[in-house]
């Protein structure tokens, strides 16, 4: 079982790995690097490919953190998996909209909405 410091991972029982974030503000460069490595390891080491990133409780994230999400998305796609995002506060969602990352990621309002969407 892998140990993560920047994220927690829970299996929802139907094959979806629900990822939550330890930091309220994802801004420190070192933490972002570690976060990227931990998220990537979910796919490359733990072989998870149905991943839900739940951002409830996250108040701020820099574009460097956004870049880690994009890299994770690429890895999930390469593993023929699916990545979804939920729980974004309005200000962070605005950043996804401005950068048009709302076209790249499947954004859902709640964890329940997102898990249901994995079953579609």
């Amino acid at each position, binding site marked *: 079982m892998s140990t993560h410091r920047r994220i927690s991972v829970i299996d929802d029982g139907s094959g979806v790995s629900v990822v939550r974030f330890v930091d309220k503000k994802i*801004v420190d460069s070192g933490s972002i690097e570690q976060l990227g490595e931990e998220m990537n390891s979910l796919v490359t080491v733990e072989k998870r490919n149905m991943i839900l990133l739940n951002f409830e409780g996250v108040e*701020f994230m820099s574009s*460097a953190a*956004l870049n*880690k999400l994009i890299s994770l998305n*690429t890895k999930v796609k390469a593993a023929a998996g699916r990545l979804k995002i939920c729980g974004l506060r309005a*200000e*962070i969602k605005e950043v996804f909209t401005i950068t*048009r990352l709302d076209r790249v990621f499947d954004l*859902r309002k709640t964890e329940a909405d997102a898990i249901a969407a994995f079953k579609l």
Partner: protein
Amino acid sequence: MPTSQHWQFDQHLANDLDVGHAAIEDLMNALSLCGWEGADLFRIQMAVEEAVVNAIEHGNKRDPSKLVHIVFQVTPEKVTMMIQDEGEGFDHRNVADPTEDELVDKPRGRGVMLMRELMSEAIYNESGNQVTMVKLRSKPEPESSES
């Protein structure tokens, strides 16, 4: 910390992310004390974070012998932020649009766009090693539960 609803910061800082983040923290505290709140605070933090990290990592290339000049001016209605590094600058007029189809899923190139979109104004000097951003306080909007 601000007095009389005005606060100013003008320092040449070590080229160090922790030092830069401490300055941003001071700015955010000053903004709160001057009555700024909500989405404006988020947008300002996002933009200034991009500018400071760009200056330290890309402008000064993490060189500890270089400095970053930071000026913040905060009033209840307007914040001005100037960040200047000692690097060679960049061609800010020809930054690729990260929302183009072939770039939108690439993990880079969003910082400059976010500064321009989130601020009322974001202007580079000729050589591109100094950015000045202005944010005017938004008019209050009713809270929305829309996701």
